[in-house]
């Protein structure tokens, strides 16, 4: 069997067949065998996605493990060794903590420590987005045309609507912003949704006829 058959043609054929099952089941009256096949495929999708996630975590462990294994050869910087060491240490510590409790990750101690360390750091780093936005608004948001005037006006008016100190004195701004949401924003969002939907349908049709290798090849180099 030629390489291109089992490395390319069969996977493309699988994409087409599986997508075809779902599309036929959706557009024709859903008959029991097709619905059962569709449900089975969805269950496969859930399981395979879960295994893919485990694969991702294993790759992370392999990468950090490789860095630490080269420590003796002095091929890594001290900073990188520190980072990989903390990663592996954290993995082992929390892993052992979970294993030591019959409830594993639902245990009280694990939950308390996980929320204290992981959630708090995630919250801290998640709160780092605002300076870049403030800086951009401050330095780069220049009104030089009708379009930039539109975006700036809507930006300011929307901000003011969501400030209680402003709406307490100017409640009339609430229906103004509600109108902006219901009319120009909804219109633009509808256009975006229709446009992206057309693109998705084209990709779907190309997948059905086996002409979309991008659906599988970008993952494998």
């Amino acid at each position, binding site marked *: 069997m030629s390489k291109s058959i089992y*490395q390319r043609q069969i996977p493309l054929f699988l*994409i087409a067949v599986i*997508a075809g099952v*779902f599309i036929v089941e*959706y557009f024709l009256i859903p008959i029991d065998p097709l619905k059962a096949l569709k449900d*089975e495929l969805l*269950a496969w*999708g859930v*399981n*395979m*996605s*879960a*295994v893919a996630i*485990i*694969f991702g975590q*294993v790759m*992370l462990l*392999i990468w950090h493990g490789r860095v630490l294994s080269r420590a003796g050869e002095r091929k890594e910087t001290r900073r990188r060794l520190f980072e990989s060491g*903390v*990663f592996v240490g*954290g*993995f082992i*510590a929390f892993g052992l903590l979970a294993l030591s409790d019959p409830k594993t*990750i639902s245990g009280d101690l694990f939950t308390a420590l*996980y*929320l*204290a*360390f*992981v959630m*708090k*750091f*995630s*919250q*801290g*780093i*998640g*709160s780092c987005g*605002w300076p870049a936005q*403030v800086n951009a608004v401050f330095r780069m948001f220049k009104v030089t045309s*009708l379009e*930039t005037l*539109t*975006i700036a006006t*809507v930006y300011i008016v929307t*901000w003011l609507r969501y400030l209680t100190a402003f709406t307490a004195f100017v409640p009339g701004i609430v229906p103004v912003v509600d*109108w*902006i949401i*219901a*009319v*120009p*924003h909804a*219109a*633009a*969002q*509808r*256009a975006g949704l229709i446009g992206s*939907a057309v693109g*998705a349908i084209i990709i779907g049709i190309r997948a059905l006829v086996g002409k979309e290798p991008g*659906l599988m090849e970008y993952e*494998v180099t």
Partner: protein
Amino acid sequence: MTPAEIALVWIGSAISLFGLSFIWFGDSIFFAFGQQLYLGAACAYTFFTVWKGLSSSAFTPISAGRVTLIISLIVGALAFARLTRWRWAARYPVAILSGIGVGVTFGLTIRSQILVQISGTLTNLVQVKPDPISAILILIGTLTALVYFTYTREHTGNYGRIVKIGRLFLMASFGYILATDNILHADGLITLLQNLIRDPLKSIGIVW
């Protein structure tokens, strides 16, 4: 609160400051420590949570007689072939997942993102909601913004004028989205500051 719980609150506050320190001190040693600890702990947590998920979606049904799901686990495990010389085998789980993804979204994309949107726009016009001018503006905005997204024709002349109107609607939408996104990040900062100011004080009995 027990001393251990109080200690955890203060340690948690310090850890969140490690994350926030990125703004002023960049990728410092404290930030790196917090980051890698977060990633390592999250990696361990993910193993357990995915295992529990597989217990529910795979192992329990398999033990109840649904043996076809074994095939999904075997095919899913082919992803690990990427670490071997049979890397091409990793295309199979990707292909199956892509096929499922395309199939699941195809019909419902047509329904939710095209038909419902078109019918919503026309319903506004027919029922004159929220008012006549707004209904017409919604139709004009949707059509002109759609015209903006067609790249097969140059945006010049009368066509360009239509595109310019569409861009105004898009700019209004971007202004709203930008503002609400800024508000979201502002709320994240506010939440963090509230936690940093109030929680440690609350743990030692000072209620703000």
